[in-house]
Structure formats: C-alpha cells, structure tokens
C-alpha cells in the first residue's frame, strides 16, 4: 500500500494495534490500550488537510482511470469527527479497563478503527468495506455479554445491518455504473427513477443513523450489550452515519422532517421504557433526530451553514454526554446487576458520585446553560427558526423538553431515589475516573463553546449565551420540572416491554422462515415431481414409443375424467400397463432422467452459444 509518509491513518493505528492486545497482560495491557488512542490523537493534531493514501483501482478493466480508492480525505468536516472519535475512544477504554476479557478490547479497537476509516474514506468502495467491518466488530461487543438474550439480539442486530449494507452496496454499484465514478461527494437528489442509486445509498445510511422505522436494531441490541461494550456502541455507528449523511445528502428536505419525527419518536418511546439502558438508547435515537434535521437544513448559504455547524457540534457533544450517561447506567448495572427501573431505587445513598456524574450528562443532554448540549442543540433549533419551519421548531423544542423529563428527571428519580430500595456501592475507580473526564469535557464545552466552534467547518456567528436565550431555556426546563413533579406518579415505570419495529425481525422473520420451510419447499417438491414425470415420459418414449403414448392417453384420461367419475376404463388401462411393463417404469427415473437433463442443458447452452450476437448481446 502506498501511503504517503507525512500521513498516518489514525484508524490504522487502532486496526494494526489490535494485533498486540492478546499478547499483553495486566498493567502492560492497560498502558498499551491507553497509549494507542493518545498516539492517534497526536497523529490527528499533526495532520494537515489534504488527500492521502489514494490507490488507483486499475484492477478493474472498465474505466480504470476513474476508480481510485482514497483512504485519507482529511478536511475540516472529517477532522472534527476524527477528533471526537479518538477522544471518546480514549475515555471509553479507561472506563473498560476493569474488563478482563481481551476480546472486548479487540472488537472495540477494530470498531473504532473502522469508524475512523469511514470518516476518512474519500471513495464509496473503501467506505463500504469499513462500514461492514464496523457492523461485524460491534456485534461482538453485544455477544460478549454471553446471555441468551444478548445472543439473540446480536443476531437481529447483524441482520438489520446486513440488510442496510446490501442496500448500500446496491446503491454504490448502481451509482458507479451510471456516473462512472466512485468518489464520495454529495449525491444528486431529485424525484424519479434516475435517482434510484441516491435513494438506495440514503436508505443504507439512514439505517445506521437509526431513522425510524429502521431504528429497532439500536434500541433492541444496545441494552443487551456488555457494560463497556454499550458505551463504545453509543458513539460510532450512529455518528459516523451522521457524518456520511452530511457528506452525501446535505440540504435534502425530507431529512428535516425525518429528523424532527425521529426526535419525538425516540423520546416518546423513552417515556414508556423500563430498562435504563434501553431508555437511554431511545434518547440516542431522539438526539440523532436533531443532527438529521440539521443535515436536511444544510442547504448552501448562511442558513445552511448554521444548520450544518449545528449538526456537527451536536454530534460532537452527543458522543460525550451519551457516553457519560451510558457509563453511569453501566456502572449501576455493574454493581447491582439490575437495569430495570422497577427493580432499582434509593441508590443515591450508595453511589452519590455516580449520581452527580450522571446528572452532568443529564444536564448536558437536556441543554441546560453551562452544559454542552446547550451550545449545540440550540444551533439546530435556531437553524429551524432561520428556515421558518415552525412545526419542526416546535417538535425539536418538545423533544428537548421530553429529554429533560425522561433522562434528566424520570431515570434519576426512579433509580437513585424513589422505588425499591436496593444495596450498592460505587463502581471501580477506573469507571469513575473515565466518567470524570467525560463530565469535565461536557462542562468545559458548555462554558467555553469557542473551543468547539473553532473546529467547525463554517465560521460561527451564533451566540448561545444571549441573556434572553438563557432565561427562556431555564424557564422552559424549570416548568418541565413542575410538570414532572405533578405527573410523577403517571411516569412511574411498569414491568412491561414496548412493541417497536423489532417486531419485523422477531415475528415476521420467523414467519418468513416458516414460509420457506413449509409452503415454499412443498411448492418446490411439486415442481420437482412434475419435472421428473415429464422427463420420465420422454425417457420412456425414446425407449418404447407405443407404450409411452398409451401411457399418456391413459394418464390424461384418468385425470381429466375423474371429476365426472367416468375414468374407470383409463384407470384399469393404466394398471394393466404398469403390470405389463415394470421395467419401462423403472427406466423413467434411472438413466433416462439424468441423460435427458444433461441433454436439455446442452441444448440450452448450444442455443445461447449460437444465438449470442444474433438475438441478443
């Protein structure tokens, strides 16, 4: 591979670094695991913008000049995502250090490395390859939980992603066919069959972005993952999907609406949920809605710039606070072994530090002033106002309120205070330390948003801390608390589960398998039997034409006249024939059948061979 000397792909640091993990043990391994993301971070800081590591795709004979694999497209968009992925992976690895099974670290490293591969990919083929590696490596973060439920959820997870991957690949191939290029830039968009490749690619991307109804893999599988694995899962799949949407489909209007619906959809299901990690998984979907809406509003011009900036900034903040929330929920699961709100309660006495760290994440996701969500979420909401989308604006504000209601109030209230009183202790030190770093980053970005704004691709003219804005946000959230306090008994969790589109794979999938096993196989057997009979007839005909024709007449007569009950003569004739010529009957299925089939195929082949160039080309 020709890689230019001045650039080292940060993803390859992870992907190659994986090889040493199984050899190392104990403190050596811990030191190694922390060092790799730090090296990747330094590598990113030293990187200059440009295009690196491109390989011409001359292996393909057709249009070889246009096909080039680009592993390193480094610009201000891919760099932001590169930074947040590497920073997040560092914190997550510290959180996972008390994990003994090295397989978790290996799959996590491959996962992070391939996500970085997606972010820096400049062409669709390498994008697709990293996309699939991401799906398969993340699967092991779920399976390492080693429970029956995790095993099944993992299968559903990979089925969803394989479906998305197939659709994406189909789109990419069609796109390469029609345009003659595999470069990954904004796709053309419009209505009609000509845009089918774009539609398919968008569908593949949307599945990873968890846009309803293609979101069920997330809320189904993430809560079943290992404690550390779930933390890794929160960041990379959905945010890399946001990145590719930003790159490929900025300003596509349908995404505005999908995003707004997604934000509300996620939060309504979060209200209904009982499992703490599933509740947070639904809020990932909801938060993704802001970014998807931001992508949809990203038309060219100043209004589009604020939307694109908002989507990127929100993705950046979301990675951090979502990781923090999953870390805290994972800590609760780790020490109590429970994750259902109905089984938890009164944990504040035992885990005050975890509680306060969780609350920093909760304040950030709710968009409280001085926390990270406030400086990013409001950019997307502001963009909706600038676009004049009142309904979208209202839906997004509603989702923000719902987020505070569920993640900021319901979850901590029923986990750390009200409900069953259970025993616990603080989680291991490395977990607390990792949560501390992420919490610090959330507050730091909230107080000094310039740090984040400076990294965004467009200049930011937005001032989050305008007095009117701060006051109106505080007002909104504090009255949400009032509503929560009044309605808190209505929000009390129940020992129930909620139906969602995972029904598709759970029930429809099973029915489909049943359909294949029963009616489809029966149908195939009928066809098979009929074909054998026909072939048998021809074999018999070649052997003994007289008997064969009598057979045919007797068979047809017996079958046609059966409804009229006048077929006795033919039935008797048929029995007579079967008695008289048992050997001819045996011929039907032995040699004759095989010979006839091969003859038929040879004739077909001959026909195709001779007619090629005449009838078709």
């Amino acid at each position: 591979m020709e890689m230019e000397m001045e650039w080292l792909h940060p993803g390859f640091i992870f992907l190659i670094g994986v090889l040493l993990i199984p050899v190392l043990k104990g403190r050596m391994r811990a030191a190694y695991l922390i060092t790799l993301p730090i090296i990747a971070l330094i590598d990113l800081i030293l990187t200059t913008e440009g295009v690196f590591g491109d390989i011409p795709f001359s292996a393909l004979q057709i249009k070889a000049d246009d096909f080039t694999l680009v592993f390193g497209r480094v610009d201000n968009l891919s760099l932001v995502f590169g930074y947040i992925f590497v920073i997040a992976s560092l914190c997550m690895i510290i959180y996972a250090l008390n994990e003994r099974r090295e397989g978790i670290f290996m799959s996590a490293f491959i996962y992070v490395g391939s996500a970085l591969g997606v972010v820096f990919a400049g062409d669709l083929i390498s994008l697709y390859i990293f996309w699939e590696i991401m799906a398969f490596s993340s699967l092991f973060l779920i399976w390492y939980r080693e429970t029956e439920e995790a095993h099944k959820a993992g299968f559903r997870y990979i089925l969803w992603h394989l479906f998305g991957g197939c659709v994406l690949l189909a789109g990419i191939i069609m796109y390469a066919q029609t345009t003659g290029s595999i470069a990954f830039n904004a796709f053309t968009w419009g209505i009609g069959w000509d845009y089918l490749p774009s539609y398919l690619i968008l569908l593949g991307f949307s599945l990873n972005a968890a846009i309803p109804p293609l979101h069920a893999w997330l809320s189904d599988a993430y809560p079943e993952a290992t404690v550390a694995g779930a933390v890794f899962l929160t960041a990379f799949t959905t945010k890399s999907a946001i990145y590719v949407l930003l790159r490929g489909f900025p300003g596509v209007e349908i995404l505005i609406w999908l995003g707004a619906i997604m934000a509300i959809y996620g939060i309504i299901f979060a209200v209904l949920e009982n499992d703490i990690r599933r509740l947070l998984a639904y809020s990932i979907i909801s938060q993704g809605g802001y970014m998807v809406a931001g992508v949809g509003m990203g038309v060219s011009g100043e209004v589009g710039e604020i939307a694109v900036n908002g989507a990127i900034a929100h993705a950046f903040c979301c990675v951090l606070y979502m990781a923090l929330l999953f870390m805290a929920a994972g800590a609760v699961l780790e020490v109590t072994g429970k994750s259902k709100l109905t089984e938890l309660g009164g944990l504040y006495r035992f885990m005050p530090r975890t509680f306060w760290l969780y609350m920093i994440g909760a304040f950030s996701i709710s968009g409280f002033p001085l926390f990270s969500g406030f400086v990013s979420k409001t950019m997307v909401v502001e963009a909706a106002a600038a676009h004049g989308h009142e309904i979208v604006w209202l839906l997004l504000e509603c989702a923000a309120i719902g987020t505070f209601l569920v993640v900021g109030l319901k979850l901590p209230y029923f986990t750390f205070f009200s409900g069953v009183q259970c025993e616990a202790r603080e989680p291991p030190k490395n977990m607390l330390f990792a949560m501390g770093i992420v919490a610090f980053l959330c507050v730091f970005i909230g107080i000094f948003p310039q740090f984040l704004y400076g990294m965004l691709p467009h200049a930011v003219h937005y001032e989050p801390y305008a007095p009117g804005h701060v006051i109106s946000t505080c007002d909104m959230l504090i009255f949400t608390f009032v509503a929560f306090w009044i309605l808190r008994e209505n929000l009390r969790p129940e020992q129930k589960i909620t139906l969602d589109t995972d029904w598709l794979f759970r029930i429809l999938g099973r029915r489909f398998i049943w359909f294949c096993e029963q009616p489809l196989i029966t149908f195939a057997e009928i066809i098979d039997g009929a074909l054998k009979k026909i072939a048998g007839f021809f074999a018999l005909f070649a052997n003994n034409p007289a008997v064969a024709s009598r057979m045919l007449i007797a068979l047809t007569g017996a079958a046609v006249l059966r409804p009229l009950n006048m077929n006795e003569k033919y039935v008797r004739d048929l029995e007579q024939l079967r008695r008289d010529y048992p050997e001819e009957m045996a011929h039907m299925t032995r040699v004759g059948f095989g010979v006839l089939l091969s003859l038929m195929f040879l004739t077909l082949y001959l026909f195709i061979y001779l007619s090629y160039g005449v009838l078709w080309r």
Partner: protein
Amino acid sequence: MKTTLFRIFYVCLVICAIAELSVEMHGGEHHAFWFQKIPLFHAILGFVSSVVLVLVAKGLGHWLKRDEDHWEREYAKVMRWKEEV
C-alpha cells in the same frame, strides 16, 4: 428540609417567570415565529408539552405495552402454527 427546598424552588420559579417577562418587555430576544410573542411562552411550552408528551405516551402505552414474557409467548405461537400446518 423538604419544605425549605420547595420554598427555594417556588422562589426560583417566580424569579424565572419575572425574568422572562422582563426580557420580553424590553424586546431582548429576536422572535422568528408569532407564537414566541405570547407572554411567558417558554414556560407554558415547557409545562404544556411535558403534559402532552406524558399523555401521548400513556395513550400509546395502552396500545403498545406488553408483558415481559410477550416475545416468548409469541415465538411459541409461531412454533405451534408451524406444527399445525
């Protein structure tokens, strides 16, 4: 302890409401939509949409919520179906 907390909270509520009203009166905020001009709009939005969300979720819950062993029973149903046919 609890009552003091609540008193502090009520004071906060009133301060926030007054702050929003005063900002609105001085025209401190840029309004994109007509409904943002309603006095105390954000407070009302916060309260009302929480209530609406909870009610909508409750309503949907009646329709979508199932017992925890729902899937096992559904799988068993599909299996039975298989055997019958």
